């Protein structure tokens, strides 16, 4: 046994000892912990293979003599043997070329990862799921959905209780405020509450059929509080004379002529969400990123609030 083998055996033994010590000293130890046992098995295999391979090549360096035919060309004095191409290597090289062609033309183009692609797939999957689960919900479930959308999108202005946070936005617990009625009468309106352009004239176009004159300041005050009080109290005569011809005698609106000003309807709310609105308090942006079902749900929730 020469020095090389002896060194190899001592080195192997030392490495195995260190491995055993470090593993058995660690948490879990060697016994009963499958991960530690696998790691040790791997380490043992690695150490033994390494030592064998090193010994083989050191032996070869010690004993080998060069033979074979040299090439004519020398690179900085270093020559090269003209050896046959190893068959295994040649086969692998050829297969690699074939794989490369497949990868460039088919493999990569058809399987490349795309972040936007993943987003599109996610969105499509979500929309399918949404359709399947919520497309046909009605009643309480629709109101529940409307509440969740309201809490996500609307409460920032209208407040958690939909009270408009002390006048910062419309109080949705009632259909309309007196000052909104006054503003609309004074300036006219075209807020697409019916979903289409349908202008209402300002006070210079509002005749009171009862008095055969333009609506007066006093009448505006009266009718504003009448509408704001939910179509009750004084002012029914002014409403009948001025507003009823378009908004209906009960204020519930007329299809494609004038919106309902007595109560909220889901369609009215959906139209506000689709087009936004500029009123007495300020401007509400449109929320066209909500889908049709979500708009319907918010409509149902808000209609439900003031019932």
């Amino acid at each position, binding site marked *: 046994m020469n020095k090389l083998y002896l060194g190899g055996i001592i080195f192997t033994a030392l490495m195995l000892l260190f491995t055993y010590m470090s593993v058995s000293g660690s948490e879990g130890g060697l016994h009963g912990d499958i991960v530690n046992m696998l790691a040790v098995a791997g380490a043992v295999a690695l150490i033994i293979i390494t030592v064998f391979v090193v010994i083989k090549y050191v032996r070869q360096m010690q004993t080998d003599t060069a033979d074979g035919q040299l090439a004519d060309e020398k690179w900085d004095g270093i020559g090269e043997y003209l050896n046959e191409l190893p068959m295994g290597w040649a086969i692998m090289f050829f297969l690699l070329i074939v794989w490369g062609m497949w990868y460039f033309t088919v493999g990569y183009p058809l399987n490349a990862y795309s972040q936007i692609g*993943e987003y599109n797939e996610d969105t499509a999957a979500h929309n399918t799921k949404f359709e399947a689960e919520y497309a046909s919900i009605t009643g309480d479930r629709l109101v529940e959905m409307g509440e969740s959308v309201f809490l996500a999108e609307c409460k920032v202005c209208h407040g958690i209780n939909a009270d408009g946070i002390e006048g*910062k936005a419309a109080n949705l617990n009632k259909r309309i405020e007196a000052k909104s009625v006054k503003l609309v009468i004074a300036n006219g309106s075209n807020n697409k509450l019916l979903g289409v352009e349908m202008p209402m004239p300002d006070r210079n176009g509002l005749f009171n059929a009862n008095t055969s004159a333009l609506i007066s300041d006093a009448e505006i005050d009266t009718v504003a509080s009448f509408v704001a009080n939910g179509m009750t109290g004084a002012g029914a005569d002014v409403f009948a004379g001025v507003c009823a011809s378009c908004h209906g005698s009960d204020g519930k609106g007329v299809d494609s002529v004038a919106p309902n000003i007595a109560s909220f309807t889901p369609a009215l709310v959906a139209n506000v969400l689709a087009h936004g609105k500029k009123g007495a308090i*300020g401007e509400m*942006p449109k929320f066209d990123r909500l889908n049709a079902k979500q708009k319907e749900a918010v409509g149902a929730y808000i209609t439900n609030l003031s019932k």
Partner: protein
Amino acid sequence: MFHWLEKHPFFFAVGIFVTIAFAGLVEILPNFAQASRPVIGTAPYSTLELAGRHVYIKNSCNACHSQLVRPFKSETDRYGHYSLSGEYAYDRPFLWGSKRTGPDLMRVGNYRTTDWHENHMKSPSGVVPGSIMPAYTWMFKNKADINTAYAEQLTVSQFFSTPYNKPVPMKDGSTKIVKMGASTAEANALALAEAKVIAADMKDQDVKDAVANGQIPEIVALIAYMNSLK
């Protein structure tokens, strides 16, 4: 030739660099040029909006608010379409931000309006209960720096050919012309005209009076900038 290169390692290294650099340029440049072009619907900032952008930067809004919507369903539901690189074509510098202490503002102009911003900047917790954003009351008093905004407009229009006073295509097929004044006085007049539109939707009487007197409080410029983020 190869023999020669092997004997001259410096030129070999240069050759390798040129080869790889060329391949890189061919791959990267055409895509980059396409993606960095302004997308349709992206217009340069007007004088007042730019002044508002300076207010935004000055108060480090970008430390808490990002301006980048990532392509995830949860984000596009909340903020709108994911961001495209061409949308930042006129942002110098871009304000992507790195941390969302507050929400993303990339498209805040789509879902908040002037009066909401006014309430919110005065008292954030008044409209958003539990908000940790501080109130920015000084913006209602300090005056916006229109001259600096105009200087930036002049610079970018000359050095980067930012299309001021030129038609820019919009999403609905129309074109929009963002005006830039020919002089400081004209720029101030343009900014004031814009400010009047914003102030008309505001409620703070001091701000309304200031704008009526030809002054532009920072809040008006900031709101103009917020409304332009779409």
